[in-house]
């Protein structure tokens, strides 16, 4: 049971980081998006990304504690 729940979440995290680092967004707009706005969105995306990662890890930390308490 334990194996089957941790593996997909690890895969998800790996995919998330790979995508975050390797993806290059082509410019689709006829509009100039303005660098300040892009950087701001990078930060917002960073915060959102961080939240996702923290949430994933939080689940695992909770599970770890639950296991430790169960063992004690």
């Amino acid at each position: 049971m334990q194996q089957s729940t941790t593996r997909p979440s690890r895969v998800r995290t790996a995919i998330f980081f790979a995508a975050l680092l390797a993806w290059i967004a082509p410019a689709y707009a006829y509009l100039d998006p303005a660098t300040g706005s892009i950087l701001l969105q990078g930060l917002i995306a960073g915060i959102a990304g961080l939240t996702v990662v923290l949430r994933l890890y939080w689940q695992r930390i909770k599970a770890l504690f639950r296991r430790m308490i169960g063992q004690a």
Partner: protein
Amino acid sequence: MAAYRDSGSFRDPSGSVMMLDDRIFRTVMPLAAADYESTRRTGILEELMAEGLVVQERPVSRELLGAAAAQASYVVEHPKLPFISYPYEWSFHALKDAALLHLDVHLRCLERGVTLSDASAYNIQFRGPAPVFIDTLSFRPYREGEIWAAHRQFCDQFLNPLLLRALLGIPHNAWYRGSLEGIPVEHLANALPLRAKLSWPVLQHVVLHAMLEKISAKDRPTGEAAKVRLPQIAFRRILVGLRDWIRTLEPKGSEKTVWRDYAEINSYSSDEARSKDAFVREFAAAVRPALLWDLGCNTGEYSKAALEAGARLSIGFDFDAGALERAYLRAKAEDLNLLPLHLDAANPSPSQGWGQGERKGMRERAPADGVLALAFVHHLAVAKNVPLEYVVDWVVGMAGAGVIEFVQKDDPMVQELLRLRADIFADYSEESFERALRARARIHRVEQVSAAGRKLYWFDRN
């Protein structure tokens, strides 16, 4: 006559708005054909059109436009809107509703894998007090991870003008009219006091945004910036955050402006108001103007009378910010086909933008089918020193028929305007007014509506 391109439609190479015989068409160029097809396949446009959030479109044959559409992949026809207005003419609440419509449409689209290529406030028009999205070529497929390229444009054209009024109590109209692409985030950031900067959304969309803009202008990290990726969840969160925030924005202060309470505390008795109301109704029932211009509309009282009696759409104009908000909110609450707009009649909207033809001036959008100018003439002739004859000429030039009120010099309202200044208006009299009006139109009917001598003139040039 051959089809011609609208003078405001040239920025987006995806296509353009064409006019032919008073009908409105939009070409879709080969560059945008695939996006046009795939966004239409999702069905989201049809849904938004059925709900009235996006203007209707109907595919028509390219042949209809002849050589003008020779290069186009598709041509669609839109219903013609009776009046085009611009964000610098809208009231605060109209701009707010337009911003919310943009965000709602965008969020609905994202659910179906579609996004908007821009965030231009000029892509929104009003049907009465209801905003409608008009640029059906702004829709294109969403690509996973792309940033919101139009974020800056949304801030400049919707958010910053609203914040100017909500945080600083400055109406956006004059600044926006001089800065057609909106109010730059760097300038707004400079104007905000520290206290206003401490809220999270202001910090994010104004302060930080302006800081990053400044830094990037210095260091130019363009190569790196192109690699920024925004997960869809974060994209949606930005749009939802803006929508929830904008919903709470209201004009700063108590909204006590000069003429706002005019309808309640003006110098006529209710008998006078009733006579005016009846006169306007009689005019509207006889002329049945499809498009009525109500100059000095205040809170929309007489527009309402005209609409109930037979006018189809009324565009109200006033320079008082508080009166405009009340008129707009009244139109919404009472379901009136009325759009009140900001206008300083001594300095009306000019033709401006590229080639001075991109955004049309007030005169270029005339004539209307009917005009009301009630308690209006003295504001120009006395308060602004415009010769009476010029004022009459200007009003009569707006429509083939209308109602003008003349207020005598000894009227309390005119005396109020003269309280602190010398009476230099020897020519301001009923005789000169009538002479000026007769020189330009036929006087169909005259009625005295107040004991003090206020008179309504129904004129007709046809």
